[in-house]
């Protein structure tokens, strides 16, 4: 480059006025501004929709006819843990059974889509209130139970059935002393979870 001083082009630049140098300097500054660039990156957003779960009530929990007494008592609808369980009805002293009509509630649990079809259910924990038709009295139902293996209930389920299946639910009716005669009814919620 030292010999470049003899190059006619360089000599022409060298002969240029101070204005030429200022132009070059300002171009240099513009080059640095250009260097303040931008960058983009395309990444992916994704989601998986699992099959939806449907639970349909196909039969009521029915404690049947109950005869009260001066003392409080209970009536229970019991289940065995089988796909089609044996359903029985028992009473404690204070309440006695009448008639033969009673039933466990039944629910059809179905799911759509692909993936793990295992399902567990959550039964009511708090007592559910049954209100007498026409008012004036109430009873409670608690100790809900189902035909699923005990380890398949709650938040840390063990072996659970694959949907579709029928869920059977029983419970315990608390009958007061001298419970007013009438028809009592209420609602309770069962939640099915897939995992």
């Amino acid at each position, binding site marked *: 480059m030292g010999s470049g001083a003899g190059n006619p082009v360089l000599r022409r630049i060298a002969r240029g006025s101070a204005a030429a140098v200022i132009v070059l300097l300002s171009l240099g500054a513009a080059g640095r501004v250009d*260097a303040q*660039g931008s960058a983009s990156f395309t990444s*992916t957003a994704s989601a998986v929709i*699992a099959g939806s779960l449907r639970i349909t009530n196909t039969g009521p929990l029915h404690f049947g006819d109950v005869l009260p007494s001066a003392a409080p008592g209970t009536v229970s609808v019991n289940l065995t843990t089988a796909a089609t369980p044996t359903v029985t009805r028992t009473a404690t002293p204070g309440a006695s059974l009448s008639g033969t009509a009673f039933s466990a509630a039944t629910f059809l649990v179905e799911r759509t*889509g692909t993936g793990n079809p295992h399902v567990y259910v959550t039964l009511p924990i708090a007592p559910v209130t049954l209100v007498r038709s026409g008012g004036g009295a109430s009873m409670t139902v608690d100790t809900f139970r189902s035909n699923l293996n005990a380890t398949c209930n709650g938040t840390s389920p063990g072996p659970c059935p694959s949907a579709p299946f029928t869920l059977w639910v029983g419970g315990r009716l608390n009958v007061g002393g001298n419970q007013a005669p009438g028809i009592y009814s209420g609602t309770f919620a069962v939640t099915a979870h897939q995992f």
Partner: protein
Amino acid sequence: MVIRRRSIQIAFLGAYLVAGLVRSAFGQQPAPITISTDRDLSFGSIAPGPAGGSVTIDPAGGRTAAGVVVLGSGFGAASYTVRVNVNGGNPHYTITLPTSVTLQGPGAATMTVDTFVSDPSGTGNAKPPARVDQLNVGATLRVGPNQPSGSYSAPFLVTVNLGN
């Protein structure tokens, strides 16, 4: 001779500046700012309901849901490495996120992702000496009533601009 030597110096200065301009114009220098993805944005597995709902991933990677039940653990915020290759000062950069993106699913099924949120938000600073910053991005997924089951995805663009 004195005059001539100064002229040569000026000529060298000019040649140096021109060479610098040519180098940046032809991209031979490292890009002044780069961004690369470390992790994609994933909403994970979702059980839809009859009423629809939404799932939000915050930039820290937490997941919250409304109206739908979320399943499993396969979810996370998008994460990027922003690298600034210029010297001098605190290299601030501005962040441009999408407004909304449509995820394509099975058949003609779609879902919308919107409310993109980043950490840092709006402007980042790839502080010296490393001049490297981590940028995390979350968003909200809109799940329709009885959303068809399957895998949904779409690309989305995050842009960083040097300077603010």
